[in-house]
Each structure stands twice: as structure tokens, then as C-alpha cells.
């Protein structure tokens, strides 16, 4: 296999593993993405608790490890050691299958997400369709979970959740189409549904689609941004699992590791829809201003960002290390935090190696954009009250849907404005 790896590196193939046709590389990428997303979910879990806590004038997890850094691990151990309860009267087959479906649906979307021009598991020319289709499979898992539990609260939660998700899927689809419309504004007049193709179209048109036909692109993005929060059942649209009404919604009856699968699926879905929004409107893996700020100097400046980020993280960690209590009781924690900083410095130094520096560019910018979205998710949760079900449906069907249709029509008309102008011109001159 090492020979194969060097072969791959030497050939420097500019295709995704899927196109390259190698199951080995596909498997490597799959494991990387699966592991990476799982890790991201764990980090997100910690970050969400910390950020939310600091928004709410409290500290969040502080006990397990320095600043609660080991809390996710402790949680994982706790969940593994919890009893897995299948309630009486539940349809055990469906009950056990439901979280699996949600998870597989949530993760399969990652097959087409391009972390870079070659860093995608595969690129299909129906990328967006695939993503819309697979993410809609999650609804099935939720309905099944709620129905199988044989309990009122999960059933109501599941019905609510699925109604909510299908309602927002319509608006989401319309917003996606208006982005697809923009991809076909090239001389050939051919658009694409491929995720990589969409990013390349943005590069070719010298703009992120969010700024295209301002404000049309922005409105489409806004529709998608609202729909994606609803689609992932997060605040302020978190009423399927509204703990104050339905205690936990469709996963009320789940416990232990099986429950954590739902959480894993939810967070994975959050990351995946964010990456879709980024791919469609925010230039995907491209660094800011790839067309404006060109030249080797700018390239170098931007390529230093990953290392700088990690240096920044290391600086934060070291600052916290210095502020740790000096009591011997905290010695291990202080050393641990320092070691964390050390790891960050190490990563930053590795990121300074020119080859690595250029290699991680795409992934870095993509992940940085995802991080912004995830922060927004947390921020929403800290700020907004929860919508009521009828209000939620009203927003979906009476606000976002007409807005989506309108934006779609307007984008179509804008895209053909020269033709329309010619036509009008000819009419006048007849």
C-alpha cells in the first residue's frame, strides 16, 4: 500500500477518489470524513456548552479536565455505560433501526461535500439532488422513532418534526434552484448540479453567489439559512424536541448510546447543511477574494492563515494555562492544558511547511466557514425563544415559499435580461 500512496502523491491526480475509481482511496477518504465529522461533533458539543454558558453568565463544564476539555469523553463513557431501554409495547425492530437511518442519512450527505477541488469522497453530477434526497431520508428515521416508541410524546414530536422538515424542504429546494440557475450563466449556457462544479462556477464568475444579482442571491441564501435551521431541528425551530413541551420529542424513549446516535446525527446534519450553504453561496473551499487579491504575495499571506489560527489557539490556551489556579490540586490540569497548547503549536508549525501549507488551504477555508455557521447555530440557541408550531408552519409555507418562488423567477429574469431587452427592443422597432 505505501507504494500506492506514493504513486498517488506523485501522480498528483486532480480528481476525487470517486472519479479516480479507487475503492482504497474512497475508503480512506470515507474513514477520514467519518472520523473527522465525529471529532467535529465532539468538539462542537464542548464548544456549544462553553459558548452557551459564557453567553449566559456561567462557566459551563469545568470539572473534567482543564476547562472541561475532557467532558465529551466523560459523556461518551457515561453513555456507553447506560442501559439501553426498549420500552414496553415498542416495535423493537423499527425502534432500533430508526437512529441508524437518521445517522446513515445524515452522514451520506458527506459523500458529495467538497472540502476542496479534490477533497471530496466523490463528485456526482447530481450532487445537489443527491444531497436533498438523502437529507430528506432523515424524516423517515424521525417518523419511525416516534411511531415505534409507542408513547404519546415521541409520536407528537415525530409528527411535528417531520411536518416541519418537509415544509422547509420545499423552500430549501427553491433556494437551491436559484443558486443552480446562477451556475448556468456561462457562455456555454450549461449549469451544473455537481457540488464541485458549483464552486468552480462561482470562481469562473468572479463572485460568491450570495452577492450575485444583489440582493437576489442574498435572499436565496437567507431562505436557505432559515430553512436549514428548521431542517436540523435547532433553536428557534427546535420544537420537535422542545423540552418544555414534549420533554424530548421523538427521542424521549431512547437512552444510552442509542440516544447519542440521534445527537450525533443532529450535529452531523448541522455541519452538512452548513457546508451545503457554503458550497452554494459562499464560495466553498475558496479563500476570500481569490480573483481580486491575486499574486504570490497574497497567496502566501492567505496560506499563512491556518498556521496563524493554530498559533492563536495556542496563545489562548497558554493564557488560560497561566491563569490556572496555582494550587497543587490543579497541577495535573495545568500541565494538561499546557500540553494542549503545545499540541496546537506543533500543529501550527507543521502547517508552516510549504507543502502542507498549500495542501490544507482548501480544507482550512471550508472548515473556517463551517465554524462560523456553527457559531451562529449556538448563538441562535442562546438568543431566541422557540416558535410555536403554527407559526413555524406559517413561516415555512406563507413566507419562505412565496419568497423562494419570487426569487427564483427574479433570478431567471435577471439571468435572461439581455434576451428580454433584445426582445422588447425588437418589439418596439417592429
Amino acid at each position: 500500500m505505501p507504494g500506492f500512496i506514493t504513486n498517488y502523491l506523485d501522480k498528483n491526480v486532480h480528481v476525487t477518489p470517486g472519479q479516480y475509481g479507487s475503492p482504497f482511496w474512497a475508503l480512506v477518504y470515507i474513514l477520514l470524513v467519518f472520523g473527522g465529522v465525529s471529532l467535529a461533533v465532539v468538539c462542537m458539543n464542548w464548544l456549544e456548552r462553553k459558548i452557551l454558558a459564557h453567553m449566559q453568565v456561567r462557566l459551563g463544564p469545568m470539572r473534567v479536565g482543564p476547562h472541561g476539555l475532557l467532558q465529551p469523553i466523560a459523556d461518551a463513557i457515561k453513555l456507553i455505560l447506560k442501559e439501553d431501554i426498549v420500552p414496553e409495547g415498542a416495535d423493537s425492530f423499527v425502534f432500533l433501526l430508526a437512529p441508524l437511518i437518521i445517522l446513515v442519512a445524515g452522514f451520506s450527505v458527506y459523500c458529495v461535500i467538497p472540502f476542496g477541488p479534490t477533497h471530496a469522497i466523490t463528485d456526482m453530477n447530481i450532487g445537489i439532488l443527491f444531497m436533498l434526497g438523502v437529507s430528506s431520508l432523515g424524516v423517515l428515521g424521525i417518523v419511525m422513532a416516534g411511531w415505534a416508541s409507542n408513547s404519546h410524546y415521541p409520536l407528537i414530536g415525530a409528527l411535528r418534526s417531520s411536518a416541519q422538515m418537509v415544509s422547509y424542504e420545499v423552500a430549501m429546494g427553491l433556494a437551491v434552484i436559484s443558486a443552480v440557475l446562477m451556475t448556468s450563466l456561462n457562455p456555454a449556457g450549461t449549469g451544473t448540479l455537481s457540488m464541485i462544479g458549483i464552486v468552480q462556477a462561482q470562481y469562473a464568475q468572479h463572485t460568491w453567489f450570495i452577492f450575485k444579482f444583489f440582493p437576489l442571491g442574498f435572499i436565496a441564501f437567507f431562505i436557505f439559512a432559515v430553512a436549514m435551521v428548521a431542517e436540523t431541528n435547532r433553536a428557534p425551530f427546535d420544537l420537535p424536541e422542545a423540552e418544555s413541551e414534549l420533554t424530548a420529542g421523538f427521542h424521549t424513549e431512547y437512552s444510552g448510546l442509542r440516544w447519542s446516535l440521534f445527537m450525533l446525527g443532529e450535529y452531523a446534519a448541522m455541519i452538512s447543511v452548513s457546508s451545503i450553504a457554503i458550497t452554494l453561496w459562499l464560495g466553498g473551499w475558496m479563500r476570500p477574494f481569490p480573483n481580486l487579491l491575486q499574486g504570490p504575495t497574497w497567496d502566501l499571506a492567505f496560506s499563512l492563515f491556518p498556521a496563524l489560527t493554530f498559533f492563536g489557539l495556542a496563545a489562548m490556551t497558554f493564557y488560560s494555562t497561566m491563569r490556572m489556579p496555582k494550587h497543587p490540586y490543579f497541577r495535573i490540569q495545568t500541565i494538561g492544558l499546557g500540553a494542549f497548547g503545545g499540541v496546537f503549536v506543533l500543529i501550527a508549525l507543521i502547517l508552516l511547511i510549504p507543502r502542507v501549507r498549500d495542501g490544507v488551504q482548501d480544507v482550512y477555508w471550508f472548515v473556517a466557514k463551517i465554524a462560523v455557521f456553527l457559531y451562529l447555530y449556538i448563538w441562535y440557541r442562546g438568543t431566541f425563544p422557540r416558535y410555536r408550531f403554527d407559526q413555524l408552519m406559517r413561516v415555512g409555507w406563507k413566507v419562505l415559499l412565496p419568497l423562494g418562488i419570487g426569487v427564483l423567477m427574479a433570478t431567471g429574469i435577471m439571468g435572461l435580461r439581455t434576451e428580454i431587452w433584445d426582445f422588447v427592443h425588437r418589439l418596439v422597432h417592429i
Partner: protein
Amino acid sequence: MPQNYVPVFIFIAVVGTLIPITLLLTKLVRPSNPHREKLLPYECGIDPVDRARGRYTVRYYIVAILFVVFDVETIFLFPWAVKFKAFGLFGLLEMLIFLGILIVGYIWIWQKGALEWV
């Protein structure tokens, strides 16, 4: 090329085996002593009086059917969207008629109050 889609199957296979294996493995460490009270469905501490799987309100059904209709509409728009520049004005007009007919229906159901939840 279909080989583009093979990784999807691999992905599903990987996720679909890894998770059940994890679940089975953790069976070795987690306790299991179910008893009647523990297995009761959650109903805020009260014994449930009836089975939960009764008929449910018809509104969910309407939402689902409206979703299917608008989803079909969305699907029809995709082939147009990737080629709309080539279709030109004629394609746009076609699409506007298509959407127009549906918008009529949309306005009708709005007027009818089918979009109201309560």
C-alpha cells in the same frame, strides 16, 4: 460514470456496519436489568391509559401531500435551471406558465385556509 457513485455504497456500508458493531460491543459493558416500571412508556409519571398509535389529525396528511406536490414542482425546475440560458425566453415563458398554474393553486389553498394550522 457509475463509479462516481460506488463510494456512496461503500460509505453506507461503512456507517451501517460500524454503528451496529459499536452498539453490539457496548452491550458487553452496559447493564441490563429491565423491569416493568422502567419499561413503561414515558407519560410524565402516569401509567399510560391507551396505546399511542391512534389516528392522528388530518392536517399532517395535508402538509405531506402539499409537500409532495411542491417537491415534484421543484424537481421539474432542476433540468430547466441547468440549461435555462440555452432555452432562452421561450424556456422562461414555459417555466413562468408552469409556475403560474401552481401559484394559482397555491393562492387557492391559501384562501381556503389549508395553510393555517389551527
